[in-house]
């Protein structure tokens, strides 16, 4: 049966002696490894790598690809992830051989083009965020957060202020925030949100002591709400001797409208794989570029790109640098895409993108709040959070059920169970690249799901049924971990 062929692992397609690749004929003496190197250094066991033809490889992964949803297939309102359309021109420019073939250690006079791009991109990201300079090295958002925390560390070290060990993180923060602060050697203290879903200034004030290193915030916050008191918060933290860190995952809401630098942040990480349209690749690679203000510039990770006259170079000579945070200079291919996007959109386009992202989110919110509970009912920015708690209480239909039902309708689920401050949270981020009819289709589906919840909840519990696999047993996966294929 053909299904049998279709559901194999690549290892299960292996046939002894089959080949999918021809190595060029060797043009130097073909000595055996043991003639070159003492046997004790050589591999003992054969690997069970697959033995397949090129045809096998292509068919296997082409079929696999068809078992995967993606932005190019439809709406992907995964909150906090900014799954906007990834423009094709970005892929074209990222594919240019003049970039792809560069070795990170080749002489800098032979890499002026890529260095100019990095310089130019840094400058533009600074303009968007209102910061002074930055680093493009962080490989993802969390890596950017770590880098941000190292700025805090380096700054206080330079100040000789060793007592500042505490970083404040709101209760609604993304998990990476506290984790990043923690692995950087900070003690994490949670700040409560108030009834409006915003950082409680009252609670914040409790923590403003001489141990305060600073605070990590995202604004709009993870409820999609703009922190009204952000200016006051910044003042309070600064006055207490602390620093402010901005998690840029939510920047898509406010480009050209409000800049973290102007809000008072000292350091900002950006997720280029969100706001700047680089594809997420099924989990990465992304880029967590970090921008800082003048105060923190001396602590940039080494090297940083600079310009002298008309020459671009990697500056390793940063006396107060926090050190090296990655092997080379970051996910360069991602940077090329982000740069392409910024050129394409320009100042007018970036601003318009934010405006329409916010328009789309508010439109959705208004159209859904009648059927789903909206815990914080006010104007939102790029995303908003609904709760399935009432539905769960009334009909036994929870956030997961709604998510899985959406899959059945051919749409990606929202982010569920985050932020933690909302029970049965469902976080929707439509992004600006969705058209009105796409939103309307989604609204219709969501209403249909709400109808089903009332009338036929069991049908929802069954869903999805038409996806490549149905609901997957996560408990078994975790309890009896099978994490690799085993040869017989």
């Amino acid at each position, binding site marked *: 049966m053909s299904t049998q062929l279709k559901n194999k692992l690549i290892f299960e397609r292996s046939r002894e002696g089959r080949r999918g690749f021809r190595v060029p004929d060797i043009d*130097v*003496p073909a000595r055996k490894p043991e003639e070159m190197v003492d046997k004790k250094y050589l*591999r003992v066991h054969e*690997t069970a790598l*697959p033995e397949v033809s*090129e045809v096998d*490889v292509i068919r296997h992964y*082409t079929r*696999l690809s068809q*078992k995967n*949803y*993606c932005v190019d297939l439809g709406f*992907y309102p995964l909150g906090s992830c900014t799954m906007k359309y990834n423009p094709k*021109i970005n892929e074209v420019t990222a594919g240019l051989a*003049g*970039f792809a073939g560069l*070795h990170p250690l080749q*002489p800098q006079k032979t*890499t002026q*083009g*890529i260095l100019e791009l990095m310089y130019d991109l840094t400058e*533009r990201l600074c303009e968007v965020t*209102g910061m002074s300079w930055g680093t493009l090295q962080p490989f*993802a958002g969390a*890596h950017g957060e770590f880098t941000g925390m*190292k700025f805090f560390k380096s700054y206080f070290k330079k100040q000789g202020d060793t007592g500042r060990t505490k970083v404040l993180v709101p209760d609604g923060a993304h998990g990476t925030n*506290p984790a990043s602060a923690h*692995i950087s050697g900070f003690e994490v203290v949670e700040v409560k949100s108030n009834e409006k879903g915003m950082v409680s200034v009252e609670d914040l004030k409790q923590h403003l002591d001489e141990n305060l290193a600073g605070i990590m915030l995202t604004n709009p916050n993870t409820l999609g709400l703009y922190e*009204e008191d*952000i200016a006051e918060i910044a003042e309070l933290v600064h006055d207490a001797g602390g620093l402010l860190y901005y998690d840029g995952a939510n920047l898509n809401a406010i*480009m050209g*409208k*409000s800049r973290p630098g102007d809000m*008072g942040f000292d350091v900002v990480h950006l997720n280029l794989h969100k706001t700047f349209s680089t594809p997420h690749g*099924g*989990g*990465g*690679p992304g880029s967590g570029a970090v921008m800082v203000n003048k105060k923190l510039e001396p602590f940039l990770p080494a090297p940083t790109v600079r310009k002298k006259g008309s020459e671009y170079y990697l500056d390793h000579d940063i006396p107060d640098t926090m*050190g*090296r945070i990655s*092997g080379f*200079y*970051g996910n360069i291919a991602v940077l090329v895409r982000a740069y392409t996007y910024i*050129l394409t959109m*320009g*100042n007018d*386009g970036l601003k318009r*993108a934010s405006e*329409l992202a916010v*328009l789309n989110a508010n439109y959705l919110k*208004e159209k859904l709040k009648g059927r789903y509970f909206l815990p914080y009912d006010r104007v939102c920015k790029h995303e908003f959070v609904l709760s399935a708690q009432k539905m769960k209480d009334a009909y036994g239909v929870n956030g997961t059920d709604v998510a899985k039902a959406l899959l059945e309708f051919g749409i*990606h689920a929202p982010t569920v169970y985050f932020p933690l401050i909302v029970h049965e949270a469902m976080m929707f981020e439509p992004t600006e690249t969705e*058209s*009105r009819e796409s939103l309307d289709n989604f609204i219709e589906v969501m209403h249909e799901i709400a109808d089903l919840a009332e009338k036929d909840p069991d049908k929802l519990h069954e869903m999805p049924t038409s996806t490549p*696999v149905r609901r*997957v*047993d996560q408990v078994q*996966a975790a309890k009896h971990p*099978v994490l690799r*294929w085993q040869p017989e």
Partner: protein
Amino acid sequence: MFPYLPHTDKEIKAMLSDIGVDSIDELFADIPAKIRFKGELNLPKGQSELEVYTRLKRLAENNRQGVSFLGAGNYDHIIPSTVGALMGRTEFYTSYTPYQPEISQGVLQAIFEFQTLMCELTSLQVSNASLYDGHTAASEACALAVNSTRKTDTILYSSTIHPYTKQVLETYFEDLNIKLVELPEKAGVLDTDSVKDQLGDNVAGLLVQSPNIYGNLEDYTGLSDLLHEHKSLLIVSSNPMALGAIKSQGEWGADIAIGDTQPFGLPAYYGGPSVGYIAATEKLLRKMPGRIVGQSVDEDGKRAFVLTMQAREQHIKRERATSNICSNQALAALGNTIYLATVGKEGLKELAEQNMQKAHYLAEKLKKEAGVEMAADQPFFNEFTLALPKKAADIAEAMEADGIFAGVALNQLDASKPENLLTVAVTEKRTVEEMDRYVQSMKGALK
């Protein structure tokens, strides 16, 4: 007009009216006036594809390439055509992390295959879904060692590991209460005698690298036993291409294997994206950083793959997490997977052997014909270090005029290294003609 913004004016109006506001600006009224951005961002206006492409093309052409003998963690290997064709499938590259397994089996199964491949290569039991690069993988591995061993506060590492790895370790650990202790080298490899002196119950693990920064292979016979006597872990970093020929981490008895998979089908791309791989013994599974895919079944009993063991991750653990990695290098790991599937079991062996054969050909020819010396008399894989009679950087610069990137001057990576060391990488892509030209060029440069 912006091709990615589908809204027509009419639609915007209708949507605003449905929301119950008069203008988009009203939706931004919650931004306090005092911090609202009022001007225009100081950036050029948007441009057409042609204009943008022209600019990017110019930038791309403003780089130069040469016949490359550069290595030190990034190599010029053959990339089979399957890799680009399949990584270019939009279902793979425009999807997010596979949080919804029902519609993400493509990515999930590929990662499961990646994990298997890494286990096979390293001869270890568990692998994760990827880390950022080989250098940050080292720091994750050291953190894993610290977190899996009781009451330890020290990481030992060999002076022969990549200098950038050391620097990354320093950044990661300097603010934690973890001591990093460097062990000396002898004749271009770790002085294994020094390990005993530094070992104690406070030592979480020892990080070594083979092929090391000089390209030399190191002999770890007995090392894991020694460490395990002190309940310390052995962490071995290896260029994974070498694992097609050289003893794997598991075969040396390592507890954790790490490295960087750029050689497996990923373009050099000025250093990124690549993938940091990490594999470990079963025992270390619950402390493993990063995402892991597991096999399970769906409601119909059909095999299915899913992100698993998420209790380890920062989404749940938050400030108690021992790693903060969230997005990783999934697409690049997919590239590795396609690469390894394509070259296959025999192909990888052949490739590894050819790397070795070619590097040995050049090294011997250089010794014989250019009269240069190896920095140490040690076995090597596809990379070796010359001790030149002049500054390595100067020689490299002279050879660049012949269109040859001669190698990495080691003091460029670590100022404390002698100025005359040049590390030369030779992959299967280098032809005998190119190598012969290399020797001629070197002779010229040495004059």
